[in-house]
């Protein structure tokens, strides 16, 4: 319950934070909202020498409109993402998913960037970020780079963020008018999802013009269900069509087995939840 001793730094600019990262290298740990890091520290599963708190860098917070995309500061708390009108309008599936992330208290402190950088495959933010083709703006001492969502998640708790880099923004191409739903399956409410599906769909009349599907906890990273997307494109927005497409949900997945369910069960769930998520997204 008591973390190991560490030094604490609360820089007020990204540059200052990066300088500290460069100086302390792998002995430093970034603190965003802390809602996963603090349990890790309390349980002494990690023992950094320095904690760099990004909480005082105001420029990392907020949501702004950039024409064809919205940009969410990495340190924007979930509660703000949840209520932000830009997010609701242009990134509906993120808006849907964030309501189901952990609980109210966690959403008050936890941040979008922190959740994504933590890269827990059972985290609720990865699948919608993938489904929305989010881009991750990562700052390093030699400048910033942008990483596509599909390249951002590398492995369990591992992302494309380098040792001396910081995730600063999440850029989400506008999906205005897309239907969206996040279907989360848990045994008790305060649990991470056993499996969840983020679906966002653009309808053209009664036809599914295009669909984007993200899967939570179906592998060591959040995954895109591209086979389902391909199967849905151009199909009529009917239950039968969606059912048929959802059968492809497990392609390319490698779900874990644990006390909440084995891989077979998760694979089955992925299909059912994908169907339900897509149907809900198209209002069926």
């Amino acid at each position: 319950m008591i973390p190991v001793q560490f030094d604490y730094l609360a820089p007020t600019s990204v540059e200052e934070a990066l300088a500290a990262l460069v100086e302390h290298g792998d002995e430093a740990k970034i603190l965003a909202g802390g809602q996963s890091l603090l349990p890790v520290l309390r349980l002494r599963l990690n023992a950094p020498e320095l904690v760099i708190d990004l909480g005082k860098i105001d420029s990392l917070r907020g949501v702004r409109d950039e024409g064809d995309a919205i940009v969410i500061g990495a340190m924007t708390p979930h509660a703000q993402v949840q209520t932000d009108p830009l997010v609701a309008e242009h990134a509906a599936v993120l808006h849907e998913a964030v309501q189901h992330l952990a609980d109210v208290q966690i959403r008050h402190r936890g941040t979008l960037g922190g959740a994504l950088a933590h890269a827990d495959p059972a985290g609720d933010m990865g699948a919608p970020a993938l489904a929305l083709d989010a881009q991750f703006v990562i700052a390093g001492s030699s400048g910033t780079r942008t990483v596509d969502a599909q390249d951002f998640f590398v492995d369990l708790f591992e992302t494309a963020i380098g040792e001396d880099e910081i995730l600063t923004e999440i850029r989400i191409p506008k999906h205005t008018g897309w239907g969206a739903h996040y279907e989360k399956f848990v045994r008790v409410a305060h649990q991470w999802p056993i499996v969840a599906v983020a679906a966002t769909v653009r309808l053209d009349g009664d036809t599914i013009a295009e669909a984007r599907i993200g899967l939570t906890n179906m592998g060591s990273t959040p995954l895109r269900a591209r086979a389902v997307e391909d199967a849905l494109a151009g199909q009529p927005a009917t239950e039968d069509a969606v059912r048929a497409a959802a059968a492809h949900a497990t392609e390319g997945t490698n779900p874990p087995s644990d006390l909440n369910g084995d891989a077979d069960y998760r694979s089955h769930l992925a299909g059912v939840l994908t169907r339900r998520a897509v149907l809900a997204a198209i209002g069926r």
Partner: protein
Amino acid sequence: MTRISLTVDGEKVSDDIEARMLLVQYLREKVGKTGTVIGCDTSNCGACTVHLNGQSVKSCNVLAVQADGGEVATIEGLATNGELHPVQTAFRECHGLQCGFCTPGMIMQSIDLLANNPHPTEEEVRVGLEGNLCRCTGYHNIVRAVMYAAEHGSSDSVQSEGASA
């Protein structure tokens, strides 16, 4: 050691602390606010819920240094001049507590919930309290208490429906 200064239940406090000290430990060990308790080490139980700058947070999941310059409200600051907060009254009226260990967190979260949604449905109350565990009440009377507080909104004590609920 880091110097922090903040407001706890309206009083200014300042201490030298280790960076690793959690806000809940700071409240309990340094400020003497033992009304706020620790129920777990994975931030599941919510027993340590306080308000930081007007929002409910799990104080085991915040470093005390992160609260520097902030305002913290705990269960101990709710009653003013001997008058209970309406949510405190509601918990007593509706028997929303038994052993009372989860109660500080439950009450603080309930206040946050009602601040954002003054007239919640039963379902909204249940979902709004999903970050707080109770082992005694089966939640039935906690939910009833929050609904009661929403309905009454004052600290008037009236006869409630009793046990038949």
